[in-house]
């Protein structure tokens, strides 16, 4: 019971920390990576909340597809700015 509680609190703290860093970090590429990390932590949270369907959808759509879309958008950004 206590181990569970500690794990939940730790996971919630990690979620908030990754969200905060996503918003605050100056480098946009790092922000997207942190967002994907946030998505994976959220997947864990859904598992803890006995919601495996959401965990699966979050991992695939929330973190995966959204992350890929964002990374691709940054790719364009860098491609335009470098040369």
């Amino acid at each position: 019971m206590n181990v569970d509680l500690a794990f939940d609190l730790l996971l919630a703290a990690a979620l908030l920390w990754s969200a905060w860093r996503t918003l605050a970090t100056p480098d946009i590429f790092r922000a997207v990576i942190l967002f994907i990390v946030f998505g994976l932590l959220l997947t864990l949270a859904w598992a803890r909340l006995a919601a495996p369907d959401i965990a699966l959808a979050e991992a695939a759509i929330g973190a995966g597809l959204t992350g890929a879309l964002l990374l691709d958008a940054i790719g364009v950004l860098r491609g335009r700015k470098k040369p």
Partner: protein
Amino acid sequence: MIRSAVVILAALFAAALIVAFLDLPPAEIDLPAAVTANMAISGVDHPVTAVLLNFRGYDTLLEIGVLLLALIVVLAVAPREEVAAPLVASAADPVLQTLARIAVPLMLLAAVYLLWAGAHQTGGAFQAGAVLAAAAVLLHLAGLLPGWSAPGLSLRGGLAAGFLVFLAVAAALLTEGALLQYPPAWAGALILLVEATLAVSLGLILAGLFLFLS
């Protein structure tokens, strides 16, 4: 100035929310009990799938509409002149290609499994569609599938099929008395039909959101 005002307001509001959470009485309506009581006539064994496609299937129908709508906007607005995305150009390395060749068949298998499993346990059209989309994106990143440009009628048909079939089923069931009123005997088969077409269309749409953009 505005910045600190927003931050202070946000913090106060979060505190108010948390205080409100902590003294909530138990809910008066027990909806999970109603779900359990009606599982037998819902056509599936998995409660989340039952809610998603039967009890609140109307929400899901509209949500597929939202997704299709987003795709239509992407098609209308995305720049027509193809800019070769550097992420794609640099990614066509042999390791990724080999990985894609191994992973994609496994992903297809996983999608079929998820679709079939959805009736009884975790899984269903959404997860299956997401895996299909991920497979397409992986192929694209490995340089094995080019980005899509303007889709022809057959591709548009594939993108819209899931929504159209769902819509047609919903309308046809009006003969049973109400929109989306599955007759218990047919519920399982109809839901499987809807889910199977949805999985394919969702896969195409989600992949399309990525591939039409890049």
